[in-house]
């Protein structure tokens, strides 16, 4: 090969690759609207995106796995946490996490209510983009996971470090409820996932607040509750009062869920748990 041929090779391969790339780009544009649900990009979503940029969120977090690695990925956060939870969190993260325990804390951002609401709309839009099913397993913010590290270890590992401020005093009830959800004995999270459709020993609690509302209002409801929150409380304290049918979860009118929470958990903790579950709308 001489220099002229080498030059032809360089130019030719560049031109071919460029043409192929441009062709695929045009085709991608054809598909973007469907894959990203472009019709759902409302002004609120667009404004939420601007808020995401304005506060430099991407230089701690990742979205679609892109950004920085100092804070958790948020691609599917809107499916893991209810809107109310996210709103409360964004008002003041320190009410949810303890810097002494995790050694990291998100600084409070002084967002307005509108900014927060739009940010949540944006994250909700993000979570619904068709992105080849990534992540292959849910990326959670806290919790000890399943497998060898086991759920039970979660409780053991969560004792506050010496010198940590007494838990709870300044935390939001929703945040405290999330802790109860993980750390009650036995842990709610051991049987209930918060992901839509992910049934474990118990049904998924994604959207449970909405369902509670529907159940209470329906004609065949057999319990005593008058509203969704009361219904959730009842389900925690007396799991068998009203059951969602399914041989997987109950037999002869008795739920498989332990009926011990009513006496093992303090009333406060039950309140927190209800507040937390009420965010899953």
């Amino acid at each position, binding site marked *: 090969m001489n220099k002229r041929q080498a030059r032809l090779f360089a130019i*030719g391969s560049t031109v071919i*690759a460029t043409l192929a790339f441009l062709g695929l780009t045009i085709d991608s544009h054809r*598909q973007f609207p469907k894959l990203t649900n472009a019709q759902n990009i409302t002004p609120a979503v667009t404004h939420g995106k601007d808020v995401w940029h304005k506060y430099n969120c991407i230089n701690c977090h990742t979205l679609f796995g892109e950004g920085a690695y100092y804070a*958790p990925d948020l691609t599917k956060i809107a499916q893991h946490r209810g809107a109310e939870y996210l709103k409360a969190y964004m008002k003041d993260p320190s009410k949810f996490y303890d*810097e002494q325990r995790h050694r990291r804390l998100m600084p409070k951002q002084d967002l307005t209510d509108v900014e927060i609401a739009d940010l949540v709309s944006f994250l909700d839009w993000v979570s619904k983009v068709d*992105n080849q099913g990534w992540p292959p397993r*849910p990326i959670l913010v*806290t919790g000890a996971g399943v497998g060898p*590290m086991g759920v039970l270890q979660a409780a053991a590992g969560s004792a506050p470090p010496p010198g940590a401020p007494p838990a709870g005093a300044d935390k939001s009830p929703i945040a405290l409820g999330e802790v109860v959800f993980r750390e009650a004995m036995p842990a709610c999270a051991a049987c209930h996932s918060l992901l839509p459709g992910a049934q474990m020993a118990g049904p998924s609690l994604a959207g449970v607040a909405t369902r509670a509302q529907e159940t209470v209002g329906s004609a065949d409801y057999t319990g005593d509750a008058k509203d969704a929150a009361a219904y959730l409380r009842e389900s925690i304290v007396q799991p068998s009062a009203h059951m969602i049918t399914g041989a997987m979860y109950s037999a002869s009118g008795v739920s498989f869920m332990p009926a011990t929470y009513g006496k093992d958990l303090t009333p406060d903790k039950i309140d927190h748990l209800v507040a937390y579950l009420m965010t899953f709308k």
Partner: protein
Amino acid sequence: MRYRSQSVAYWYFAVAMVLFGLQLVFGLLSAAKYLGPDPLLYILPFDVTKVIHTNLLIVWVLTGFMGATYWMVPDESRTELYSVKLAYLQLVLWTLMGVTAVVGYLFRYGTGNKLLEQPLPHKIVIVICMLLFLFNIGMTIWKSKRFTTTEGVLVLGLGLAAVLYLPALLEYENYTVAIFYRWWTIHLWVEGVWEMIQGGFLAYLLIRLSGADREVMEKWLYVIVGLVFIAGILGTAHHYYWVGVPAYWLPIGGIFSALEPVALVGMAIYAYSAMRRSGMSHPNTLALHWTLGSAVFTLFGAGLLGLAHTFPDVNKWTHGTLITAMHGHAAFYGAYAMITLAMISFAMPSMTPGRSEQGSSIGYWSFWLQLGGMFGMTLSFATAGIGQVYLERILGMGYLDAQLKIQVHFVMLVVTGSIFAIGVGLFIYDFFRYAPRFEVDDGQTAGPRPATKPVVTAAHA
């Protein structure tokens, strides 16, 4: 130094050195925050230190590229620069842009778009500077009527880099579309046109340092450029895996990005065999260390560690973890920091008299400390990243709890990062140790050898 106007390169290098030092301050601060708790949470939080760290990187490397180009083009085209004034004007404008951008980031004034955080006014100044620069270089070559392949590859790379920055000036309504075009800038820079720039510098250095034949070197340079673009352009798809684009990008990304290391293997062989076959013909062995080091470390950081997570089946687990930071550091350092340091090491002896041609022992200490430190940092990010992938992505442990389990790797990162920073400190010290004096040398003392035809001046002994 053979042309008076080459002295502008010194001032570009000086600015690059200062910004390089600052970059590391912010890198170490960021790493310390991994360990937490963070006493600066409300003064200088992580997002601020990180954005400054990465932006200073881009600015200093580009400053180095420009300085090195102002050094190399007169040599290649055998002429003075078209306009020294313009070159200084450009440097002042560029430095002001860089400094005000960093000050702005302290107050979160930026676009909040990874690596493209420069606010719009700054982006426009960047474009103006690039135009001034390309105009100045273009006119120099035009007027000299002498145009070598080596500088052609370099200048085309720089020109295309400017063109590929343009999509970053636009706003996109759809976040997925914004991601799509962000990679036209970032990926096609580092795995496309910047590799042309690196290749141009590499060829120049090898031709000057070894006795290699220019015709042969330039022929293989074309081959390398061809290999870069065959794989690199469609290889952009390795950033399109999980972001909401059509699924056909998955196999395309897997296949073409896996071919990208071929060009990097080519580059390493290119450098090695040039030295092997033709031997040294220039006293500057320190510049040779940096030159070969760059070719080899690129192969490691970009080629091997890039390949390690470029297949969709691997990337689906590692995407967005510290594994990416492992690769980003080793690749950027090997390819673009080291080649810039090579050009600086090559040019310095003729601009700062008193310096030894072979490089001082401080220079060698700096080389090995940086290399060792960066290797250690790469290992720290790698071990932390593997831990993160296993605990968080595979076992499903929560992000915050998994990070607590990999603290020891962050300690390692701070330690190895400090070793690296000492190496860089020595380089900067060595740079400023001798005052610059710009004397045109007509080939009597050791200096860059004339290019192909030894007509213009006699070669040094």
